[in-house]
């Protein structure tokens, strides 16, 4: 909630300042923004529905058991898959990762989960392709997946 207020205040401040300098230009800008939003909206709503369904099936409790201590080498694989597909906001993902750490999950598994979560987005594909195009989106995600695994292995070795 406080974040929402901050975001609204910052946006309002910029709109106000812009209006003060040039009202016409501000209107043009907001109009452009609205047009872009309109174009994105169907993809965004699809993303919203997909994420809700996915995280309903793979709940935090399910994740705890999937990535748990007993998972072993399979843990990295599951972490990579779930992290790549899912879209979990930081304020939910990090406390979850903290709980996993306390329950004895290795740094490598945690790094895999966190980095794939951040860099790879299968569910966000509908939104990403609108801006980057299909081929660039696919290549970016594949490279990011490999990169995320590399990062996790290095983090595991270093820690």
């Amino acid at each position, binding site marked *: 909630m406080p974040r929402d207020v901050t*975001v609204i205040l910052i946006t309002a401040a910029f709109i106000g300042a812009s209006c003060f300098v040039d009202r016409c230009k501000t209107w043009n800008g907001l109009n452009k923004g609205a047009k*872009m939003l309109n174009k994105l909206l169907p993809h965004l709503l699809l993303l919203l529905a997909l994420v*809700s369904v996915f995280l309903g099936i793979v709940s935090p409790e399910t994740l705890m058991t999937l990535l748990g201590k007993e998972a072993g080498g399979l843990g990295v694989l599951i972490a990579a898959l779930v992290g790549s597909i899912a879209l979990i906001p930081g304020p939910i993902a990090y406390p979850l990762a903290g709980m996993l750490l306390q329950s004895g999950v290795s740094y490598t598994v945690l790094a895999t989960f966190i*980095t794939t979560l951040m860099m790879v987005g299968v569910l966000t594909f509908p939104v990403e392709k609108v801006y980057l195009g299909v081929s660039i989106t696919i290549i*970016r995600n594949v490279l990011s997946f490999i990169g995320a695994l590399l990062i996790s292995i290095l983090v595991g070795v270093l820690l």
Partner: protein
Amino acid sequence: MKRGERHKVPVEYGIALGLVIMIVVMRLLDMEIGRQMGGNLWLFSRQMIVLIPCIFALIGLMDVWIPNQWIQQRIGEGSGLKGAIYVVMLAVFQGGPLYGAFPVAHLLWKKGCSIRNVFIYLGAFSTLKAPMMLFEAAFLGWKFTLVRSAVALPVFIFIAEVMAAYSRRTGVQMNQLEADG
């Protein structure tokens, strides 16, 4: 083909609506999974309903106020290390989910930012955001956060170089959006 598409309601609306109806029905039947999904739907909707309009209002303003020349000079082709540092700084002090960064990245590219710098921006946005790193450090420790960031930096710069090379070789660019005009 274009004319036919114009009148068509995007198929995404249909799929999204179908999924939402499914969630609502499962919720009404008081199924556990329906309650989970309904909770997520509510959580994400509330997050987006404020964030998304604000992001696009700011992007629209950036579009009209930031001169293309300014972007080209600082983070365009041949802007070198300095350009890379600029986009990393820009990304670090932002917040929000990665899907909010794609329209910004697209705007930068449209205004003359090089492909390499666009992907350095996305890389930094996904792995080095200051607000998220504070969160990460609080739950996983500073050592984990610093090591992960230090390792991530060269990796996403390498990815950006590959993307730039791919774009140069094949001529593939980002999507041109009609609404840009």
